């Protein structure tokens, strides 16, 4: 709490100095970077925006009442400054938890699940980097690519698992609840027959992809692209 107050007070002080013009000439910065670099505040911005995006997208998948939707959006935007002043993974994890709770009340949707997984993961990574990197820091593009390479692998694995599950769902016509997709999505549709092995097939395929990925990642022990 003290940290938030201190940061808020410092920001107000800086703003006041900027407005009154009493801010002295800033000290020069050491030329340290090689090639292009990103400022830390970009990561902080991402860490503030991505959880809000997740919070806003979550109710959009359902037909919630407009006042509820508007309330959620206003609340999500209202907590934005908090995420900016106190960057951490907590914001992303809270957003993921909220999304998971909200999704429980909805019928399962692999497409939305995949989208939430990717945005949630990016929000978590941005929050983690923002908590470790001050706003004035310079993050070299090569270091970002190193981080990005690993994140890309994780997201590709997630997307593959999700894609296989979707494909399996499409091929077998089965959801993981054991009911048919058509039955769940449209009660008036023709009820398809769903073989119980369908869901098992999808889970096994996703698990195989996961194991393959983990084995690959574990054996590589890589340092990433240099």
């Amino acid at each position, binding site marked *: 709490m003290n940290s938030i107050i201190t940061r808020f007070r410092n920001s107000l002080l800086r703003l006041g100095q900027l407005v009154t013009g*009493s801010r002295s*000439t*800033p*000290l*020069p*910065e*050491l*030329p*340290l*970077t090689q090639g292009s670099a990103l400022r830390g505040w970009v990561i902080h911005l991402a860490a503030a925006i991505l959880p809000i995006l997740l919070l806003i997208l979550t109710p959009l998948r359902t037909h919630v009442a407009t006042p509820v939707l508007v309330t959620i959006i206003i609340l999500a935007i209202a907590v934005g400054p908090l995420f900016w002043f106190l960057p*951490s*993974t907590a914001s992303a*994890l809270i957003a*993921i*938890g909220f999304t*998971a709770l909200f*999704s429980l009340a909805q019928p*399962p*949707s*692999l497409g939305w*699940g995949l989208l*939430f*997984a990717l945005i949630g*993961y990016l929000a*978590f990574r941005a*929050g*983690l*980097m923002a*908590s*470790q*990197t001050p706003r*004035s*820091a*310079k993050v*070299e593009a*090569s*270091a970002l690519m190193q*981080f990005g390479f*690993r*994140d890309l692998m*994780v*997201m590709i*694995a*997630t997307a593959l698992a*999700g894609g296989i*599950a979707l494909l399996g769902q499409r091929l077998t016509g089965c959801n*993981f*609840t*054991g009911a048919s997709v058509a039955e769940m999505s449209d009660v008036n549709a023709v009820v398809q027959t769903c073989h119980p092995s369908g*869901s098992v097939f999808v*889970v096994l395929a*996703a698990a195989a992809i*996961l194991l393959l*990925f*983990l084995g690959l*990642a*574990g054996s590589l*022990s890589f*340092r*990433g692209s240099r």
Partner: protein
Amino acid sequence: MTTNSPPTYWGVPRAYRAAFGLSTALAIWGLLFHRFDLALMAMPLLLATFMSRNLLPTDRTIGKFVAQPDSQTAFSLQMPESMNVDAKQLRVYAQGYRPTILVTNRDQVDLVLNTKRTGPQPTFTVHGRGIGVFGLLVENPWIVTADETFGLPNSYPLGQMPAPTRLRGLTGARQSRRIGDGGDLRDIAPMRPGDSLRRVNWRATGRRSPDLTQLYVRRTFANAEGIAELVIDSRDDVGPDIETWLGSAPLRVDDLTSLDLARHAAASVAGALIGAGDRVGLEDLAYQKRPVAAATGQRQLRRIQQALALSAPHGEPTEVVRPPRLPNDAVIYLFSTLLDDSPVSLATGWVDQGNPVIVVNTLPKVRTGRRAKLALAWRIAALEREQRIANLKSRAIPVVDWQTADSIIPSAELTKIARMQAKQRGRR
């Protein structure tokens, strides 16, 4: 899930436990209740936490500074190559620079301190740490500091310099008014006991004494040397930014302080006077225990440059300054900011003793900033200072600004003073 414990010097942030807990809960929920969408949401976090525990860093990333050849202010920070370290976070501190934070994955970072400052000064301090895979392992911070650098003042070329009015000795580069073994003709006089036969001027003898009853010799002016004493007022060291005077704000690396200007000025004056063959000594008002005795030659110039670089304020500036013991026949150059009355009383005291004094004002052009209180304080201080300069000028003590708007070297002004002194000497 396999969990390897990380090396002791690598810490696991709370985010790891939170992410692992949430993702595990979601995955279990999803699998138990056939909600693959929930399991999918947990999957990237689970993968990241799993991989971060299986791709552990092997070593620490503690860097070390290596000085680059032919440079006192350029260093390379070399960090060992260690497996499974995605990046290093470096917080670099250097005097006069903003602390800079860099996230890099290079094993070597080159650092150059572009400073104009003189004297001993710290260079770089780096607080660093490695960031493991996915940022879910963070190394305990390490600190390394580069060697100090030592900036010698420059000796800028100056023109004609105000010379001492009284010369001493029978050797040197200057010409005295006494008769002696010099180069310039003084007069032709009858030969007296002690005169060398080589000095007999046969042409003058033939003209004035054709019968050779009296020999005439050629008499010359003796050579001599002057003594100059440089007195540096290093009791205070203030920069151009008035906000830095209390020490609460750091000085910019590209700003010269009053002491830097004093060092450059004293080194330049010493270079010019030693070049003219004079003996030059140095006194430090803040630290009078180790004066540099007057001597001449290039070694003396280097000695003075070294002593100047080492001069620094010692504690709070004292109000009462004991006048250093200086030769009576020396010309005194006083390098001061004139921010208090002590230099004025010293200069007037020396003038009363008969020493010619030149005061070199080493206060840089002051920036008051936009803070009204500081601007007002500086206005009062500046008025007092102007009064002191006026007092000095009323006692015919020239005050030379070392840093002017046009140039940083007041060569023309010093030449003007030298000519004026020569003219006054001629009148006498």
